[in-house]
């Protein structure tokens, strides 16, 4: 083989870009564009997701109320006339409903608002089914107001509420058996007269869930409380156990099969599908140990087991980040190994451990699937007791409440589910921001 036979590229000027290089540069540009497009897709997906949730859910924080004076007739509410709450409790919500219907009708007439095309029955349907129960609760709590005329603020029905939020229109009402255009027009007139107003809805955040027919009354109170209880359980169990396990594995464990097995176990547990933890909770905590269903203690235990790997991994990383010189310094002064760890290493690793714990808690807060299996989907109307007994009372949880509401037929629950998601995301945002701030504030470089 001689050099003469090999192709020698023709001598070319650097200023003239060859066709081949032009082609290669075009392919370079294309490749770059793919990369940029990928980023765009990711960012757009995030934006679309946030817009979708916020646009659907923001209105859940506002609610439509009807304000009218109601005469609390003694003959109906307290036939015995002795204001004994126990006896008055015999009058059910069905006894209150006609009272409200009558009050509304009279007030509209008094205000000169035409009820054109709206039957008294339809008129009653404009008030939430929850309203009689609210009035009843108020009366039972203050028996002395019976016989007076009290100005009541009552929830408007779901469709009326939807009309003021733009979810229900006159056109859609034509096709809807639950509401007629005449009702909506009347609602419009009532709004003009100041009887109907839409304002911030605290009950959505503090109130209990409501049944399928009354989306306007459904609130997140129990779910938030349940999630909060579970987070307490997780924090109280996962943090000490996780830190203890990490200290052992990082500082004391000899290299042997037993510790290897633990290490492999932890990394695998971190990747086990969450639903499997639900099965574990169902089989062990509920069916075997007989703990109650839907209880925050069971949810908390399941979430603890799920969160442990996260906390252990974060804790070990921050223990490892403490330089050996600190340990040597303590040991050199005659401290025991245990003293060097608890007096020097652990305090230095604390910010990292805390950050990891918060991130683990945030994950646990958003977890849904395992909670479905341990019965947290159940419909719960009663607030749990204060801890520790409350840990054993049935509750819901924020993410499960979202799921629960998506399974209901009334479209108004879509708004509720999205609103609950906003609350969940706000909590998560807050927790993650706290983790970021902690990290920034206490980050130490050795």
């Amino acid at each position, binding site marked *: 083989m001689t050099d003469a036979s090999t192709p020698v590229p023709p001598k070319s000027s650097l200023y003239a870009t060859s066709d081949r290089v032009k082609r290669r540069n075009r392919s370079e540009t294309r490749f*770059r564009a793919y990369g940029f497009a*990928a980023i765009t897709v990711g*960012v757009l997906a995030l934006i679309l997701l946030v817009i979708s949730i916020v646009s659907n859910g923001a209105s859940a924080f506002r609610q439509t109320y009807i304000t009218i004076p109601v005469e609390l007739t003694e003959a109906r509410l307290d036939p015995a006339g002795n204001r004994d709450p126990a006896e008055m409790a015999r009058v059910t919500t069905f006894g209150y409903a006609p009272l409200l219907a009558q009050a509304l009708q009279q007030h509209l007439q008094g205000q000169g608002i035409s009820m054109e095309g709206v039957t008294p029955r339809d008129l009653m349907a404009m008030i939430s089914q929850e309203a009689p129960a609210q009035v009843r609760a108020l009366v039972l709590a203050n028996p002395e107001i019976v016989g007076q005329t009290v100005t009541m603020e009552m929830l408007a029905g779901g469709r009326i509420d939807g009309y003021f939020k733009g979810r229900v229109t006159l056109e859609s009402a034509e096709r809807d058996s639950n509401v007629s255009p005449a009702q909506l027009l009347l609602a419009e007139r009532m709004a003009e007269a100041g009887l109907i107003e839409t304002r911030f809805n605290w009950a959505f955040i503090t109130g209990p869930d409501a049944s399928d027919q009354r989306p306007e009354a459904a609130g997140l109170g129990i779910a938030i409380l349940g999630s909060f209880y579970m987070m307490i359980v997780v924090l109280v169990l996962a943090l000490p156990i996780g830190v203890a396990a990490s200290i052992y594995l990082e500082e004391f464990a000899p290299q042997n099969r037993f510790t290897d097995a633990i290490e492999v176990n932890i990394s695998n547990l971190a990747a086990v599908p969450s639903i499997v933890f639900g099965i574990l909770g169902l089989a062990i905590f509920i069916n075997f140990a007989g703990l109650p269903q839907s209880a925050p203690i069971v949810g908390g235990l399941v979430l603890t087991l799920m969160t442990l790997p996260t906390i252990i991994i974060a804790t070990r990383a921050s223990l490892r980040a403490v330089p050996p010189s600190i340990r040597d310094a303590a040991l050199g002064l005659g401290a025991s190994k245990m003293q060097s760890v608890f007096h020097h290493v652990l305090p230095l690793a604390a910010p990292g451990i805390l950050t990891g714990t918060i991130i683990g808690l945030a994950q646990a807060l958003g977890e849904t699937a395992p909670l479905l299996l341990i019965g947290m989907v159940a419909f719960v109307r009663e607030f749990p007791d204060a801890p520790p007994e409350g840990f054993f009372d049935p509750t819901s949880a924020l993410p499960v409440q979202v*799921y629960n509401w998506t399974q209901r037929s009334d479209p108004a629950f879509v708004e509720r589910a999205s609103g609950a*998601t906003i609350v969940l995301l706000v909590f998560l945002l807050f927790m993650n921001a706290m983790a970021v701030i902690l990290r920034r504030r206490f980050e130490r470089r050795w």
Partner: protein
Amino acid sequence: MPLIWIILAVLALGAAGYVLGRKRAVSSAGGDIRILHSLPNYYGMNVFLTAVVPALLVLVVWLLVQPAVIQRQVTQLIPDNDIMESGELSLIMSDVRRVADGLDRALEQGALSREEARMIRSEFTNIRETLASIGVALGDDVNADVLAAAQRYRTLQTTGNTLMTAAVLILAALGLGYAYSRTHKDFRARNTVERAVLSILILASTIAILTTVGIVLSMVLETRDFFHLYPAREFFFGTEWIPSFEGGSHLGLLPLLWGTLYITFIALLVAVPVGLFSAIYLAEYAGRRMRGIAKPMIEVLAGIPTIVYGLFALITVGPMLRDYFAEPLGFGTSSSSVMTAGIVMGIMLIPFVSSLSDDIINAVPQSLRDGSYGLGATQSETVKQVILPAALPGIVGAILLAASRAIGETMIVVMGAGAAATLSLNPFEAMTTVTVKIVGQLTGDTDFSSPEALVAFALGLTLFAITLGLNILALFIVRKYREQYE
């Protein structure tokens, strides 16, 4: 005695022990703490731990075991024909518990006297009404057997709780006494305390193993029961999923597995190119500012709970796909479909793939990039021909991990994929997955002795085995890859 009081009492005993132990140590040294073997606090700590730890351990074990024991005893009281009638033991047992709790509550509120509660008979009193008046709702009238069981339940519970309180408190006192008696200036308190702390640490780290054992045991035992009721062959190779609670169900795994894999495939089709190209762009092209904005935004996707993605699939992506693709193109009219779940799951996996790929691409040494640029390669040629081939094993590992995530994902498919178990190729059709059916079979009122409920454990075990296999394989590949450049 309520639990919290028992715990507080034990802790109070411990605290007293701490003070006593410390004092005794100091006085045994004649007030000169320099001649003590350990610091005085260690003597106190020793007494505290000896009093508290065994007592609390017994308490926890007791709490876990007592319900199971009581349940067994009470169950014997319920005649078989009752079980036949209501179809299920667990339903009766929950009635029993409610009645028992109701009686307790009636006592508390004064609706019944202690004597009345003990002597109450279903023949003379309408228990349902009595209990309803204090806010305990019962589904049925209470029959004599249930009431007897409930009474037995109450006695056992009371006896159990008394015994537990006694046992725990006595143990705490004994521990205190023993440790106190051993406290002396030459006692090696620090070593003892440190040994105790070390065993607590070891105990904590075995929880990981216990969890795995718990997972495997809980599923293996129930799966064994399932295979007694339903042939394993038909489960693994059956192509039909038609559960029916009257019996004669077809519980074939294949349609569920098909749905799972199909959705996983589509999710990877979205996540792998987008995630990989994002990682490449961020690692090789993006400027500092761009990285500072885009990277956190992509990572935010990873922090969003799956329920939110599920909602996104349900209210936005599903209807959008149906209105703009499936219906106009004649692929179907379902808003929940393989496509919906797949795309949304793909979005969820983007940050997962991209951050793993980012790590892996950054692990490729700079010298290889230099070598390629030095030969006149463009950036994209370097990425495609040097970096990606070098990073390939790591990226394969990342994709396997993503696949394992997708297979085990539950909420997105529950809300986005549908519930119909079909073996179809149409991606716009609703299909179902293993996880959807686990949720479906185990939520609501379930009878844990029927194959329709037990099948969920077999599904869970299958899921666990698949994801575990994928994870181990992926971790192995990634570790091998890391070693290559260390």
